[in-house]
């Protein structure tokens, strides 16, 4: 509740105080939560806790702007505005709508192309997501100081470029929506990647990406590709509970207990998948959602419709012929046309500067060589993969595979 509420209060205050005052909005929310910590244990949790936080934050903000005189002669007008929304906070459905709108404006500003991507991501999480610097650092396996630096840079870019919380219009809206979706997709993928120890915070990233997607989907700018992105994220997130075993070891899609997939997220995914089909456009998100949906429809790994998945990967290559897509496609090629052809399809990736030393390329290659019975070559691949940067669960997985090559099991 606090995390979500913090995000909306910051967004709301930033709209009223101006985007140059995000810091003040954040301090204000922190202060309101601190008051809750001091007061609630004595007086009990107020009946409408969210409204309580909201009102306290507004009062703190009013005190701060009167005291610090940062807004000059606009102060009293803004105080009036703050007071007005504080009165209605319990009962007004329009305010609820306004708050959602404030959050959207904030996301759109955070994802302005004038702000560097990594800074956009950090700023979205901090302001709308209600994550702390420490949590963001943990989620990205980064240094707290580096994240703090990114946030400072993002806020400076907002001030220097005079970015506003106005929603863009026309073709600009379309472009901005694209960059918002890219940020959400990035958030989701970061959360989805397997890393040691911080499973919880990373799931929070996936959930937050889904929540922000839901906010877009419920607004007037919900385009089919928004639904497609939500579908692919929800269907992917549904598999998270089955992805690691009790020892924290990775379990491949084929071996997952599908009973542990999250039924609610699958239902949500299919709901948005249907809605993504309403338009003419077929974006990368659409195709990826279709691939995720094909997996979700298979009750058992053996009944997966691999020919369909391969066809979808071919479409994906046509839209975006990235080496990573080629690598993922190889798994489908192996299922449909055999490991030999799959191996050939990834040969060119060996010369790709980004993928040459990517553990997953080597792991896929090793896997295909194993299927072809070329054990010693497969073992060499897994050994090479182990020398690449990867997380501890991934490393354990590679070691296990290497052991299988060497033992001939």
């Amino acid at each position, binding site marked *: 509740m606090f995390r979500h509420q913090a995000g909306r209060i910051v967004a709301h205050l930033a709209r009223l105080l101006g985007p140059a005052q995000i810091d003040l909005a954040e301090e204000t929310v922190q202060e309101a939560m601190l008051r809750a910590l001091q007061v*609630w244990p*004595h007086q009990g949790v107020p009946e409408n806790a969210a409204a309580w936080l909201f009102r306290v934050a507004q009062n703190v903000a009013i005190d701060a702007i009167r005291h610090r005189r940062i807004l000059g002669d606009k102060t009293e007008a803004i105080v009036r505005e703050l007071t007005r929304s504080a009165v209605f906070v319990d009962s007004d459905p329009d305010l609820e709508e306004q708050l959602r709108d404030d959050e959207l404006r904030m996301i759109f500003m955070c994802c302005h192309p004038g702000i560097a991507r990594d800074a956009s991501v950090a700023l979205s999480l901090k302001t709308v997501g209600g994550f702390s610097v420490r949590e963001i650092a943990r989620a990205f396996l980064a240094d707290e100081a580096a994240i703090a630096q990114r946030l400072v840079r993002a806020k400076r870019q907002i001030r220097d470029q005079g970015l506003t919380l106005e929603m863009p219009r026309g073709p600009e809206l379309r472009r901005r929506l694209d960059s918002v979706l890219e940020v959400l997709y990035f958030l989701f993928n970061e959360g989805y990647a397997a890393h040691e120890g911080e499973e919880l915070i990373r799931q929070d990233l996936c959930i937050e990406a889904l929540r922000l997607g839901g906010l877009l989907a419920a607004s007037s700018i919900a385009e089919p590709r928004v639904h497609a992105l939500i579908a692919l994220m929800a269907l992917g997130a549904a598999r998270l509970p089955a992805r690691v075993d009790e020892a924290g070891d990775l379990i491949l899609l084929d071996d997952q207990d599908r009973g542990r997939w999250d039924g609610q997220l699958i239902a949500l995914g299919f709901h948005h998948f249907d809605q993504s089909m309403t338009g003419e456009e077929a974006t990368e998100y659409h195709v990826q959602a279709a691939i995720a949906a094909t997996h979700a429809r298979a009750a058992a790994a053996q009944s997966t419709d691999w020919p369909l998945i391969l066809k979808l990967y071919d479409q994906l290559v046509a839209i975006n012929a990235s080496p990573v897509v080629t690598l993922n496609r190889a798994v489908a090629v192996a299922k449909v046309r055999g490991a030999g052809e799959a191996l050939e399809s990834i040969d060119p990736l060996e010369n790709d500067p980004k993928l040459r030393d990517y553990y997953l390329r080597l792991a896929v290659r090793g896997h295909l060589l194993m299927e072809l019975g070329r054990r010693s070559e497969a073992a060499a691949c897994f050994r090479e993969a182990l020398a690449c940067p990867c997380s501890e669960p991934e490393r354990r997985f590679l070691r296990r595979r290497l052991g299988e090559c060497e033992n001939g099991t």
Partner: protein
Amino acid sequence: MSTFMLLLYDNPANIAQFQKMSPEEMQKAVEKYMAWGKKPFMVDFKRLAEDTGKVMRGERGGKPRTTDGPFSETKEVLGGYYTIEAADYDEAVKRSLDHPHLEHGGTIEVRKVWGT
């Protein structure tokens, strides 16, 4: 059973910690503080207002001198107190070990109430 007072002191370091906490951590802290107030050995607890307070000093043969409190942001400040029941100091300390105030770097002074 004796009665003990737990005097909770805040210091600049633990206040700074609170200011850096995320909403999620704040919520967890609120829940912990609330749960602690409901412990079975609890008699009473109060938080002190965050103003500077007043300090009165008696002067021998003269009028007491009253000044604003000594509280500054560079010192430990008494922030609140709990009254709990326990058999002896050992038990009082043991019962207070999991108080969230300690987790966040605060100090707790444990004092037995005379005659209890």
